[in-house]
């Protein structure tokens, strides 16, 4: 029973991370119909930026997080305006090739700058502890992660349901042409959304260092998890992504804990099965 709670806890923490990183991808796929395989690269850049800020400039971990969010968001905005925008109407093949190319470039550049090894991170001592709740040992960092994502999700949900830009975003996801027709600047909306998604992904990457590790293969290694969250949750559906990310996180942690010899097999097999059974995602709408 104790291990079960431990596994659930770790799984939820892991799932929260996946959700944070995948959110931007879900919006890109749902809103812009863009297959962005380079999305994991934003998370990786965020991770490396966090490590560099802490090691070279002595910035504290807590302070790196907003910096990473802003910097990776800005990088995302720049890329969107300069490159991605040209490919919204391109075929899925072109989008796939382009974003695989970007991922290769970012991965090679990261290897060149930081070397191929895992990057260590020193968390502040307060996030290093174990606390015991009802006889179960819980890591404070994972608790912090879950709390962080809960707060962030609540804030995002409010922003999307209560603010003007949130309403515009929902309109554009449902029908970009009609949204443009009633005077919404869809192009600008795309850029802002893409930037926020990239920034969140970078933030997720920085937060993930202690849980998933960080090395130049990160973007490709976890890409399939991010894609899976989006596709199972239904592109563009935030609630779907949340459910899918938590399910995936718990399933992966449980699989690795209870049947380690099967490894990633369960995840990939369930991915194929889920895709075949729910081609439009668990919460998906038919498009």
């Amino acid at each position, binding site marked *: 029973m104790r291990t079960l709670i431990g596994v659930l806890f770790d799984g939820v923490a892991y799932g929260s991370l996946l959700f944070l990183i995948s959110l931007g991808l879900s919006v890109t796929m749902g809103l812009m119909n863009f*297959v962005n395989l380079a999305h994991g690269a934003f998370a990786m850049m965020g991770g490396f930026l966090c490590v560099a800020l802490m090691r070279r400039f002595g910035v504290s971990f807590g302070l790196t997080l907003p910096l990473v969010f802003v910097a990776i968001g800005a990088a995302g905005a720049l890329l969107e305006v300069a490159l991605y925008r040209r490919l919204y109407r391109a075929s899925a*093949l072109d989008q*796939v090739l382009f974003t*695989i190319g*970007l991922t290769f*470039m970012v*991965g*090679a550049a990261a290897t060149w700058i930081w070397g191929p090894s895992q990057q260590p991170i020193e968390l502040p001592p307060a996030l290093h502890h174990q606390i015991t709740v009802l006889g179960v040992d819980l890591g404070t960092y994972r608790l912090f992660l879950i709390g962080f994502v809960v707060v962030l999700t609540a804030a995002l949900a409010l922003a999307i349901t209560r603010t003007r830009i949130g309403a515009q975003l929902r309109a554009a996801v449902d029908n970009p042409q009609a949204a443009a027709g009633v005077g919404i600047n869809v192009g600008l909306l795309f850029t802002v959304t893409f930037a926020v998604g990239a920034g969140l992904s970078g933030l997720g990457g920085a937060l993930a260092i202690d849980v998933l590790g960080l090395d130049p293969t990160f973007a490709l290694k976890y890409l399939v998890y991010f894609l899976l969250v989006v596709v199972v949750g239904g592109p563009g559906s935030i609630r779907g992504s949340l459910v899918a990310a938590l399910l995936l996180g718990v399933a992966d942690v449980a699989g690795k804990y209870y049947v380690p010899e*099967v490894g990633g097999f369960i995840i990939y097999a369930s991915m194929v099965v889920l*895709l075949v059974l729910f081609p439009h995602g668990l919460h998906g709408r038919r498009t």
Partner: protein
Amino acid sequence: MAAAPDAVTPGIARPRWHPLEIAFWIIPIPAFFAFPDRRLLLSQIFVYGLFALSLDLVLGYAGILSLGHAAFFGTGAYTAALLAHHGWTEPLTGLIASGAVSAAFGLLVSLLVVPGSDLGRLMVTLGVGLLMYELANQASSITGGVDGLTDLPIGALFGKIPFGLDGRAACVYSFAMLALVFVLARRLVHSPFGLALRGIRENVRRMPAIGVNVNQRLRVVFAIAAGIAGIAGAALTQTTQLCGIDSLGFQRSAELLIMLVFGGAGRLYGALVGATVFIVAQDALAGISPDYWQFWLGAVLVVLVLIARGGLLGAMDLLGRRVKRRR
């Protein structure tokens, strides 16, 4: 996707061999004698050419986006390796068996892949690729795990010609496979079946209206392509006498896509040109640094998508048309 280079004409069912095509197929002969110490590389070019050809049928002609085509290459490679490992060392029958296993697997996978959308197909093929990799990785008692299977006892060709270290037999063997499969593939894409595929690629909604069973056509071509990829994988195993887990990796699938798109998809020869340029460049640049290679690989992809869709052969086509117009 660029439009098919050759227009649909009534004579297309029996296409003539253009002199340029014949010239193209003669090039390997002087290369074979000019670089006697690079014959293993040449053999690799043929193998990857065959592999890229198989993706061209699926992607270039039928328009199915596959991110896990290495699953079939690896299936063929491992089938050939396991056959040899367990005593079936005769290469030709081993190759045919590997192709058949891979084609059967392809038919199974096609049931999952074909009904989906572009995104769904991409994800399912990616998933199947990762699944196969993980399977080979975990079943290490059968597949050798990460180390793969090495020192495989591959029998002599026709019981007489062994695969030596000089790569002479390997080179001729893989070239013969490539040429044979190419002729069949060329026949296939110019047949009514091939025309139906192109019709599906260009407009999937109209094809049922003229009586084409779209999903059946796509399933068949997917299985054929899987069989060809399996033959390529088996040929690589047999000519190198080893089978590594990287034959199933995502990297292999991505590189294959790069080869094909760089050469030009949907025109058969693009696959061969792309594979040749890729393998030669990789061989020449691998000495510098692998990161360096990967960075430029990525850069080439980005540039290709932004300015040069259609690949090398597409660019040549464009150039040729401009020259003609000027006259």
